């Protein structure tokens, strides 16, 4: 019973391509996030959604477009991929925006842009 799942786990693609990463949580949580772990190993917040509404966009280039078709899903679309987009992307969820501060993470998607 996977709480937060992501697909694919690995993604290798050429510069300039467009790709998507999918995330699903079966915890009934209201809030979902995308984090990026770059080569320096920092886990940085990219986006935060609450009840399908975008609440945080941490100065991410507009080539990145999250989409939340429902509360259980938060997908990440990336257009015109660049070398610097190579990283591990983690999806996470939380029961609500406030309280219950624990976030549950997916297994990560390792994106390699060639």
């Amino acid at each position: 019973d996977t709480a937060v799942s992501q697909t694919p786990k690995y993604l290798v693609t050429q510069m300039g391509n467009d790709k998507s990463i999918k995330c699903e949580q079966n915890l009934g949580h209201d809030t979902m996030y995308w984090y990026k772990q770059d080569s320096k190993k920092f886990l940085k917040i990219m986006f935060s959604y609450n009840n399908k509404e975008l609440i945080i966009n941490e100065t991410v280039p507009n080539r990145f477009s999250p989409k939340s078709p429902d509360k259980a899903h938060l997908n990440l679309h990336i257009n015109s991929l660049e070398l610097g987009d190579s990283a591990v992307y983690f999806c996470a969820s939380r029961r609500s925006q406030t309280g219950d501060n624990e976030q549950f993470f997916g297994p990560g998607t390792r994106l390699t842009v060639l």
Partner: protein
Amino acid sequence: DQQVKQNSPSLSVQEGRISILNCDYTNSMFDYFLWYKKYPAEGPTFLISISSIKDKNEDGRFTVFLNKSAKHLSLHIVPSQPGDSAVYFCALNSGNTPLVFGKGTRLSVIA
């Protein structure tokens, strides 16, 4: 500008001894403090947390200490076991903000 710092990128400890992982922060608005553990090719998993109204929280072999005046957080693992070998992240937030993570410390417990 790093709000959360884990200044030791790695730590090696003998099995059975105590592991102490440290975390420093700059923003006094943080009021909830968590430790996450991460194995290779997996996502971070929650380990233990503490709120700003406490200075210690214990769960089995794991104890988290919070020194608000020093803006310092630590995780003690005793006794350390080989299965504890992983990367440990401290993560902090306040209210409805997302977690802000440190860079992580890689713990190696040597049998």
